[in-house]
């Protein structure tokens, strides 16, 4: 119970910080929009609706992945100013609550971005979803958590490294590839309705398994990373 309260405290602090500046959400939103526009110009989605349906899932996730990478580094860089992170290390609350609070905050930011981006995406790419659209209510949060939980962890891991902006994608992408495969396959399956519902549900289950496994490891190892001197 106490643990939950600590998480909520950290979450409230991160939400308040973001509410005051709104840097991460605005930055992510505009970046994701730009990626979508660039792909739209490159592929001419209105003339080839079938091809568009097949590649739209991949484009959406790539846009979200790159957008969240831009925000994840920021979320820890905030803590470096005025030695806030040193104070966090001395705080009596478990280190993993700091991590979970921040990961949940990042998750909420990316979900906001998705909520704004999804309608724009559908309009720009002229998408007619052929499968069960409500499955996105499952795929989007699970996929987002898969990106954000490892992303928040690796952003903390590379915090004191030389050129940390470069290091985060170099570490995050190889680890996230199985999750990316699962979310892109599930999304494409829903968009095109080509995939058997059983296959879609297997991809979603894999995504869920990935989330559970990596959330556990992140929680277990975060203290080691925070005190890595």
């Amino acid at each position, binding site marked *: 119970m106490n643990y939950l309260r600590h998480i909520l405290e950290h979450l409230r602090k991160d939400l308040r910080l973001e509410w005051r500046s709104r840097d991460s959400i605005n930055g992510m939103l505009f970046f994701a929009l730009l990626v979508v526009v660039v792909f739209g110009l490159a592929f001419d989605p209105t003339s080839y609706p079938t091809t568009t349906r097949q590649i739209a899932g991949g484009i959406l996730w790539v846009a979200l992945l790159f957008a969240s990478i831009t925000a994840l580094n920021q979320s820890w860089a905030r803590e470096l100013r005025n030695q806030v992170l040193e104070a966090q290390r001395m705080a009596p609350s478990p280190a993993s609550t700091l991590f979970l609070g921040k990961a949940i905050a990042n998750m909420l930011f990316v979900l906001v971005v998705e909520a704004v981006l999804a309608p724009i995406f559908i309009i720009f790419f002229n998408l007619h979803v052929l499968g069960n659209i409500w499955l996105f209510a499952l795929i989007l949060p699970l996929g987002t958590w898969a990106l954000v939980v490892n992303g928040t962890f690796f952003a903390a891991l590379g915090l004191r490294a*030389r050129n940390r902006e470069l*290091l985060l994608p170099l570490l995050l992408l*190889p680890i996230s590839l199985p999750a990316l495969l699962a979310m892109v396959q599930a999304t494409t399956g829903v968009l095109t309705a080509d995939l058997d519902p059983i296959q879609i549900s297997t991809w979603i289950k894999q995504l869920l398994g990935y989330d559970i496994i990596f959330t556990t490891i992140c929680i277990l190892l975060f203290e*080691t*990373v925070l005190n*890595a001197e």
Partner: protein
Amino acid sequence: MTMAQRTSTLRNVAWLWFGIAVAVLVVGFRQAIFLTPTDAAQGDVGRIFYYHVPIAMLSLLFPYLNFAASLAYLYWRRRDPLKALTADAFAVASAEVAVVYASITLITGSVWGRAAWGIWWAWDARLTSMLLLWLLYVSYLILRRFSSTGQSQTLAAVLSVFAAVDVPIVYMSIRWWRTQHPAPVFGGGPSSGMDKSMLPAFFWNLAGWAIWGIFILLFRFALERKRQLADQEAALQAIEASLEIPQ
């Protein structure tokens, strides 16, 4: 035994081990290229099998060593820092050998694919999972490069745990995704297994590349240990020098 004696004994053992590795590889080469009959379906192209498969099998072994050494490092980090440093040296060495062996697997496989399939690369299950294995351990080495000196060992050990967890997930999810690679030679169903005439060449090469891999692994380990000891020595001298400054 004094330090100098021990070093010279170790050097002799290393030379002997190196000699054995070369000798076994020469036998393996003779078996694979000259003695084994030509593959009926593939012709001489099939001979790359005797290099590709043993090296691929070994490239799956070194990541385990890296994982074990990283766990040992995390365990000893606070309890026994000197042992932890040794574990860390072993972790670097095994990660580097893993990358080398995985690279050779990818390259030899690619060459074979060009001859047999007509394409250099296919996004097939086992090619993709080997590529991801390679990517994971390259990112491990990059992290060691980029992170600041005081913490790079700990961070690298943490990443190694992530990589070790990721590899089976990658393997399962991609296997489920698609497959085009020839079925596993061992335990891959009723038609798997090798013709008797292929066995000597295969096992000589497997043994040769295993001995060679252990050789470069230990060589790199010794090198890393020397670097660590030199660092400690330098740090000690810096402390002593700072004490001698007249107040």
